[in-house]
């Protein structure tokens, strides 16, 4: 059965994480990100840990098994903290991870929780020095009187060790909760965004940052919208966008002024009055914004849909895809069980022809822009045999339920896929359920 991307068929590749149904809260995956080559895949969780998987070198003898991802490094990025001044606990949950482009042998990534961003260096060590003059092999110091000759220590191979060390800590710049970080194409600066402000940092400088957007009203009682996501343009180092809880996106040019409160472009689609309800404001809040790789489009995710915007057209999106329109009549229940506040992310494939986002019941959706096709797939342990092809799923909105369809009322709203990532070059995707990471790849013919 053909799917998005021509004859692409998605197969199960791997699943990471505990099997048991009882999910430890700390293990809940909160972010997933491939690095720029796709060789490394990082996940962050609610317990403040980062786990990095590395793609093994392809197995030439068995080409149908595309290389697997295995654990490369695990480290505790953030710890829970307590703000004594405000009597508030600061969660250690990793909100976002962003990789820096690789410049030398080491890898660098930024990870952030609600308040603090950290730059981590991940480096390999596969040699160690041996033959010290003053020390024994086990580290004990020799008696100087026993040393009769000098030698030069040599580096000998050892088992690969991957070390993660925090190189910078960018703290105390955000009053509100950080929702986004984005590395600039200049590879020197990055932005961090909280509910009301966006700050610009230099990667080398931790004791100060520039505030470039501030939407905090003088009187907090006049607050009507908050910033929900922000991202730098992939090529233009002066351009960034930020989305709001009102469903608008603002594009800002840092050359225009130091403080980018005045936007260069405002992207907003007029609301359809026939869809008005108690919950219109909540479902129009944008949960994620992502530029396309070519920099000509951006994609936004709100509760029920994915929209593709042409940067040259502000008054409406060029494409709109319904993710789970059958939920529109269930908004009241989704409000009561808090699901309406879920923040789904979205992602582009490498050549910007397909977009992907998550849904409930461990379903995720792909929309092929060129072929005008979409598919619903499921990440589940039942479909986890090696190279098992994923069967498209269908939700029955009402009326007679066909065989193999699932009715809306049987959907499990506790099983949600909020975080997905697409390999920058290949058709390999990483899909995070609550505490498991699924890796799927397209069937190599």
């Amino acid at each position, binding site marked *: 059965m053909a799917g998005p991307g021509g004859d692409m068929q998605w197969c199960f590749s791997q699943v990471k994480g505990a099997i048991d149904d009882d999910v430890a809260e700390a293990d809940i995956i909160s972010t997933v990100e491939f690095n720029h080559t796709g060789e490394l895949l990082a996940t962050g969780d609610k317990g403040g840990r980062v786990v990095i998987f590395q793609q093994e070198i392809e197995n030439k003898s068995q080409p149908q098994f595309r290389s697997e991802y295995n654990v490369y490094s695990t480290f505790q990025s953030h710890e829970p903290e307590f703000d004594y001044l*405000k*009597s*508030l*606990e*600061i*969660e250690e*949950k990793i909100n976002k991870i962003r990789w820096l482009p690789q410049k030398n042998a080491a890898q660098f990534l930024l990870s952030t929780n*609600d308040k603090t961003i950290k730059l981590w260096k991940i480096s390999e060590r596969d040699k160690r020095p041996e033959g010290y003059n003053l020390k024994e092999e086990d580290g004990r110091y020799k008696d100087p009187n026993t040393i009769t000759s000098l030698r030069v220590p040599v580096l000998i191979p050892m088992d690969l060790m991957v070390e993660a060390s925090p190189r910078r800590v960018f703290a105390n710049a955000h*009053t*509100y*909760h950080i*929702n986004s970080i984005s590395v600039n194409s200049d590879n020197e600066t990055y932005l961090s965004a909280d*509910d*009301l402000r966006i700050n610009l940092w230099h990667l080398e400088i931790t004791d100060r940052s520039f505030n470039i957007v501030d939407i905090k009203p003088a*009187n*907090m*009682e*006049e*607050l*009507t*919208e*908050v910033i*929900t996501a922000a991202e730098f343009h992939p090529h233009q180092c002066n351009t960034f966008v930020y989305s709001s*809880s009102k469903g608008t996106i603002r594009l800002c040019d840092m050359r225009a002024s130091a403080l980018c409160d005045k936007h260069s472009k405002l992207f907003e689609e007029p609301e359809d*009055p026939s869809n*008005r*309800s*108690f*919950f*219109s*404001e*909540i479902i129009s*809040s944008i949960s994620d914004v992502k530029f396309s790789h070519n920099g000509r489009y951006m994609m936004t995710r709100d509760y029920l849909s994915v929209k593709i915007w042409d940067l040259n057209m502000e008054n409406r999106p060029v494409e709109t895809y319904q993710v789970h329109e059958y939920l529109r009549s269930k908004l*009241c229940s989704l*409000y*009561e069980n*808090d699901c309406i*506040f879920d923040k789904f992310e979205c992602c582009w494939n490498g050549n910007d022809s397909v977009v992907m986002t998550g849904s409930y019941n461990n379903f995720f959706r792909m929309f092929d822009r060129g072929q005008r096709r979409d598919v619903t797939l499921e990440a589940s342990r039942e479909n986890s045999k090696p190279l098992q092809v994923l069967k498209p799923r269908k939700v029955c909105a009402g009326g007679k339920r066909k065989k193999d369809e699932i009715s809306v009322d049987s959907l499990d709203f506790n099983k949600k896929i909020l975080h997905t990532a697409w390999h920058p070059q290949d058709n390999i995707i990483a899909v995070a359920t609550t505490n498991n990471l699924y890796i799927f790849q397209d069937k190599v013919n």
Partner: protein
Amino acid sequence: MEVNAEARRILAVSISKLYASRTQRGGLRLHRSLLLSLVMRSARDIYHSSRESEGPTPEEPMETSSGAEDEQQQAGLPEPQPALVSSEKLPEEPDSAEEECETTEDKENLSPTRQSRKRRGKASAAPDFLPSKRARLEPGEERYAAPLSSCRAGAGDSLTALSLNRGDWIPLRAEELTYIGQSQDKGITGAMVRAVRST
């Protein structure tokens, strides 16, 4: 009236969510609080308009004009700092509700003689339908001014007086509920109290 009942239910659910969000790890989430207050405002507007129009059929649930009216009195949200435990700021009818508020307002843990250190905006007073935050005094007990630090959320013990699980929440007083429908509506009273106590 169906719309009426739904609006009341949504209001009750929203209030319990607001209270629950205070004790969330990581502090009050501004985005979530804003969305909750927007829903509450919509529900309140519907409730008002459906009670005013005692017509035969309920109108379209949302009147988009109501959003514009309240433009100047938008949802004010407490910053996730000192205002955590004091009133959730909600958009209000300008004058009448305010007058009610002034008499029943209670800035937590203040002795009657002490001035509130919080800035008071137009809409900063506690909405009437929220229960008063004073713990019930036993006969003979005196209220004392607690140190400011105990106003913060997250510090476990100092919040037990506000815990929804305490049996001695005072019931909502009738005049506190005039906010909702500008009338004595026992139905709302019952629904609100049940919702708050059951959290």
